[in-house]
């Protein structure tokens, strides 16, 4: 679920190289189409909270090489390559490629239970699992995505307590399922919450890891409603903008979610009806929601007997990892605070040196001390950037993943619920059979017809639910695999971004010291 797209999109008709230089949205107009998307084609940047120029780092030669996918997808879309397995997964994963005439065929393979190859239903889930896992990994390798989103231009709309911030959501794509190649809309925060709500209730997406939007913040927003100019409001808006961008990027990176009509509507539709009921998502936060659901699952009377320990093991891993990330986040938080303190300390020290320089009557010493004050001022600037770097690169990364792991737990819960449903259907079927037996014994032929109809109905339900359960199980496995890969990529690209920012810092520092040294030596 990487928001950093380490993917290598096939060349666009109007292919261009990533342009250097990040556009800081706070600077205002970033309407030039290419600029805002630079970060997406570049594996090393996600959030533009850090205003660092982009490096044109090349993708490491990896699974996403263009030639490989081009050939494979032709095969896939023609169905030549397909095992029965591939169709089973059609719902859960979508192969998206440009320039393929088969794209119209893909539109039919919508996220809802579309027409599928009938041969799948005859295979038992157990037999499919060993091969399907390899298939999963193979198919992972051939994903490619051609959608980039960017969120810019936060603007306050309205006045007073009814004011809100509207963001420009821009999309650049080569997929034909969209109306055009580049387009943008304006959205507000509650729209994003509304999108999450819609996605999370959809039956067809059960087992998917649905990314979580950033949390509501009454305190933060109240300040913004009053005025957007003070530093803490600016920081708040920037933090939210960056978080929304990462959220949306994760959504469009997900093959199933991208196919969803609600997602497309979110990206394309000019007038989106306002999302109601997002009040329900305030205060409590999403994790609480998931935790409540988890608790409900744990309280279920029928405990599942796992034939495959994979799920149990994975679940424990996920829980443990979430705890570890929380610890890490706490440490990074304190690091960010110390850096902010250092900014303050440096500024105060610079002032005191300036005063000392002014009071000094030895000319050369006075000049050197004044220079020192200037160097310290510049260092304060560096510390500010470093603090932003710590925050946006690490703290937010960890927050995102803590929440994503919660979402992972959520999809495990969905599987449990599917199992529940199946078990309950089985027990209902059993009851119906017993009822029929009773009727036979009591010899009441007129009710027998009804009983037989009931049994038939429940038999098919049991079959359906069992299939659902298996399907969700497959989806969960696939999703988790994908998640872990993306997580590693995400962390890697973030640390590299961090290192590059630090290197830049150090190099600037070296320049400051080198400029100061002759001044210091010149004091006679």
């Amino acid at each position, binding site marked *: 679920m990487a928001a950093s797209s380490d993917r290598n999109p096939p060349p666009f008709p109007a292919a261009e190289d990533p342009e250097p230089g990040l556009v800081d949205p706070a600077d205002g107009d970033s309407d030039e189409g290419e600029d805002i998307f630079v970060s997406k084609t570049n594996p090393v940047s996600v959030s533009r909270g850090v205003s660092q120029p982009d490096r044109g780092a090349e993708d490491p030669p990896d699974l996403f090489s263009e030639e490989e996918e081009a050939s494979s997808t032709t095969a896939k879309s023609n169905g030549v390559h397909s095992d029965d397995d591939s169709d089973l997964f059609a719902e859960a994963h979508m192969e998206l490629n440009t320039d393929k005439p088969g794209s119209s065929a893909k539109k039919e393979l919508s996220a809802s239970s579309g027409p599928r190859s009938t041969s799948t239903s005859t295979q038992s889930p157990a037999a499919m699992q060993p091969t399907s896992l390899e298939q999963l990994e193979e198919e992972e390798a051939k994903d490619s995505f051609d959608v980039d989103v960017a969120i810019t231009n936060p603007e306050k709309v309205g006045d007073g307590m009814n004011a809100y911030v509207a963001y420009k959501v821009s999309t650049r794509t080569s997929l034909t399922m969209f109306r055009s190649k580049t387009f943008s809309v304006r959205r507000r925060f509650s729209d994003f919450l509304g999108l999450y709500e819609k996605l999370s209730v959809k039956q067809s997406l059960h087992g998917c890891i649905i990314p979580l939007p950033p949390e509501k913040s009454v305190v933060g927003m109240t300040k913004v409603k009053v005025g957007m100019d003070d530093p803490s409001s600016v920081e708040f808006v920037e933090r939210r903008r960056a978080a929304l961008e990462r959220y949306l990027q994760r959504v469009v990176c997900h093959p199933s979610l991208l196919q969803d009509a609600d997602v497309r509507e979110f990206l394309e539709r000019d007038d989106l009806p306002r999302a109601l009921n997002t009040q329900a998502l305030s205060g409590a936060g999403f994790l609480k929601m998931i935790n409540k659901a988890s608790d409900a699952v744990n309280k279920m009377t029928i405990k599942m007997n796992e034939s495959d320990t994979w799920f149990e093991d994975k679940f424990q891993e996920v829980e443990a990892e979430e705890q570890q990330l929380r610890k890490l986040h706490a440490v990074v938080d304190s690091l960010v605070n110390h850096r902010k303190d*250092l900014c303050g300390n440096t500024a105060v020290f610079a002032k005191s040196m300036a005063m000392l320089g002014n009071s000094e009557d030895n000319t050369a010493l006075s000049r050197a001390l004044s220079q020192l004050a200037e160097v310290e001022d510049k260092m304060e600037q560096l510390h500010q950037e470093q603090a932003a770097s710590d925050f946006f690169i690490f703290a937010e990364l960890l927050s995102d993943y803590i929440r994503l792991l919660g979402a992972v737990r959520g999809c495990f819960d969905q599987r449990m619920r599917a199992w529940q449903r199946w078990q309950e259907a089985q027990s209902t079927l059993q009851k119906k059979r017993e009822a029929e037996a009773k009727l036979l014994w009591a010899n009441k032929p007129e009710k027998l017809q009804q009983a037989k109809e009931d049994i038939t109905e429940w038999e098919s339900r049991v079959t359906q639910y069992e299939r659902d359960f298996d399907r969700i199980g497959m989806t969960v496995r696939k999703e988790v695999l994908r998640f872990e890969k993306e997580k590693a990529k995400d962390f890697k690209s973030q640390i590299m971004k961090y290192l590059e920012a*630090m*290197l830049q810092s150090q190099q600037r520092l070296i320049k400051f010291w080198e400029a100061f040294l002759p001044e*210091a030596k010149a004091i006679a």
Partner: protein
Amino acid sequence: MMEEVKEVTSALSVHGHNIKITDVVKDGDALTFVIVSQKLSGTGEYHVDRTWDDFEWLQQHLFSQEDVPGLQGVIFPPLPAKASGNASAKIMKQLGVLGLGEWQPYCKALETFLQQVATHKILNKNKAVEVFLTSSDAPGRQKVKKNIFNRLSQAVEEMRKEGHKDVDEFFQTERDHNLVLTGCTKTAAEKFLDMVLTEQKIAVACGHFSAALHLCVEPGEDPDKKAFSRLCVQISEVFDSMKKNMTSVAENNVNTLGLGLDLESRYQEAEKEMLFRRTCKLVELENARRNAEKAKPVKKAAMEEVKTATQTEFQQICGVARQEIKQFHGVRVKMLQQALVQWCEKQLLTAKESTDQFNQHLQAFRGMAQ
């Protein structure tokens, strides 16, 4: 008319400028310093153990010399406050930068004190200096009788004297200037210390992060898990490097500019005390003059004598003071320059080393398989 100070050969048998404190031993509360000085004649060294009380003994002897005209005009090299092995938070705060870094800066400050005393043309003639530096026995650790130099406790009347208008423009200017500089330097030293303490906190936080990342490393054959574990180990190393970098930056700060600002601050205070002593003498003189004028014939002769004596003392103090001030100006600029140059050079070196380290890490990440 000023008596000429006879050129007496220094009683010191060692070089003053390269006295070193080579070691500090902590024994419970007490700190013992090992002082090494080079013999003037030929090769050979003196090694002595001294505690802070011994330093104070030396200082008291310097204050209480009786046969030195104009002694009160001397800017006495400042002795750092007493440190103890288990210092309370209050004492550590008072020591400021000197309380950091395992007593290394403190030793440097004591060293500077000794060097300044041993190279001072008036002070180094005092036998106590020789005894301190060369005697293998600890100098008598009895308390020397208190004298007016001891922490000129500024009683309220004394404070009023501080603002007493001067008769000499040179000295008035110097007093005004000193007042401003003392305040500015003290503030600068304090703010610098705040910065250093925060840098240390950042280093600690980086260390915590580095350690916490190791907990994310999980055993297992799963290739994705292994990849992530490897990543965590690498990131942990990056933060370890960051910790080392910050630690170096803080150390450099303490050992160069921190020490420099601290010394400058204490030296300005020492000059302030000297100027105050002179001002007090001025007030005394003006009182003596008034007394002599107003005196009844019976007392007149005695008063006149007092007046003349005071006048002589005052003139001697002024003479020494002028010299001292001139010297002081030169020395402090040189000392600050040294501190600034060293600071800059050390930080530059640290920045270059860190750059190399971070580059290496970045290359390692780039080379990592997906």
